[in-house]
């Protein structure tokens, strides 16, 4: 099959979409997340927990009806970009379009710019700065589209990230204990439960955390890892985390997590790394798929 060069208008569409996806993600929760919060409300036994979940449901309704942001934390903007290998594309122009779209969303809506330089804490007031937005690229085989997944990553959840370079002698037992001890003692109420626990297993230190992030923010609630061993691990950890009783907003109850997702990679013979990256109950994401001529579809 011959490769398809993208048209000039493609980059304009990408810019518009990167603007639109940021705002959409902040306002319109994916259906799987809505369903998960509804289910949590129905199953919750704690009176306070039920009250908290009912406010969350009311909040989703207000955001829909009054066209408001679900959460004030506009986050660090992250764009996960998958590029089909059958396209001919200028990555410099692609990246410029993504950054510009992100900046325009912030200025034109307007949105709170939650991004600052790390030492001087300077805010450009456009949700961008050196190396931000965070953009991840992947190439997809036998594909002729660009898919952009936008995730505004709030800090309540991101501040609760943990990495442990376990050793082989600690085995799966060590992985399980690290996850549950960290959720019970360090994470607890902070990332707005009922949350998504993203777990990365294996790889290098950086890859392990990237796997945890992928698990936390890119997968629909209710999805399972295609590997049966990992799917079983997800289910065991999901049950165990919810047995901790941390509950909605950490005030006690049955619903601590709406999902525990695991992504893994092979690792070194001496290593057994595990990473945790959290996503809060408003697990915000918005997605678009774009063809070389600028035709697109928007979803979650």
């Amino acid at each position: 099959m011959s490769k398809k060069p993208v048209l000039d208008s493609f980059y304009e569409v990408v810019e518009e979409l990167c603007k639109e996806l940021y705002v959409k993600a902040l306002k319109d929760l994916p259906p799987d997340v809505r369903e998960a919060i509804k289910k949590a409300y129905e199953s919750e036994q704690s009176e306070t927990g039920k009250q908290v979940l009912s406010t969350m449901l009311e909040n989703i309704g207000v955001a829909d009806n009054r066209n408001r942001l679900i959460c004030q934390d506009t986050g660090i903007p992250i764009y996960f970009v998958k590029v089909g290998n059958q396209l001919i594309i200028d990555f410099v122009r692609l990246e410029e379009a993504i950054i510009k779209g992100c900046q325009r969303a912030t200025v034109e809506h307007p949105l709170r710019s939650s991004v600052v330089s790390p030492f001087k804490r300077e805010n450009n007031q456009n949700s961008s700065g050196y190396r931000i937005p965070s953009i991840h690229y992947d190439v997809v085989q036998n594909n002729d589209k660009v898919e952009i997944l936008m995730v505004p990553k709030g800090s309540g959840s991101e501040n609760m990230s943990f990495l442990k370079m376990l050793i082989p002698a600690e085995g799966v037992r060590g992985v399980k204990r690290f996850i549950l001890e960290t959720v019970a003692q360090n994470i607890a109420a902070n990332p707005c439960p009922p949350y998504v626990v993203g777990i990365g297993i294996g790889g290098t230190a950086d890859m392990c955390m990237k796997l945890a992030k992928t698990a936390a923010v890119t997968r629909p609630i209710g999805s399972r890892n295609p590997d049966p061993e990992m799917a079983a691990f997800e289910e065991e950890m999901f049950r165990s985390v919810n047995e901790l009783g941390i509950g909605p907003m950490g005030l006690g109850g049955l619903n601590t997590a709406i999902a525990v997702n695991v992504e893994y990679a092979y690792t070194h013979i001496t290593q057994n790394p595990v990473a945790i990256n959290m996503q809060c109950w408003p697990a915000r994401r918005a997605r678009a798929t774009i063809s070389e001529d600028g035709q697109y579809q928007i979803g979650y």
Partner: protein
Amino acid sequence: MAEYTLKTPLTEEDVRKLRVGDKVTLEGVIFGIRDANLIRMFDGQVPSPVDLTGAACIHTAPNVRKVGEGKYEPVCIGTTTSSRMDRFTPGLMFEYGVRAVIGKAGMMEASMEAMKKHGGCYLAIVGGAAAWETERIMSIDGVWWEDLMPEAIWKFQTKNFGPLIVAMDSHGNNIYFDVKAKAASKLPEIFKKIGAE
């Protein structure tokens, strides 16, 4: 578990009657504070530009629309994680007379001690429910330290601001500590069940 509607500014009496688990709805002014302005106030030793006696302060940095010099309209106002601001609570209560902190996820020993001594409380709001929260904020009536935008100090006029849950009271109770202690006590049993003893 009692329910109260309280008008701000709050008195010591207002706060002392509250017990963890009670529900509180606030009416009147609340002040928005958080990391950057508290760092300036306490680490930078720059006095607060606004009187916080009896204040209810919420941990926030809002989304706003500028409509004039020093004038802003709310776009989206929600609440951030409180634990980062724990060490500033004693200063807020003893030096400035703050009575209530509104936040999410709770605070630790330093704040509990200050609340006990001064007569203060922590009111839990639902994190991530900013659309719901914004509906209860009628206007932005003041802003100080705009150079810290969005982490300026904000004065919000509220109506029917609640129900908030009393999660830390002036009698030394802290729901978050109880929930965490319970979670820790369940760990051995869970480890046993999943072969991770």
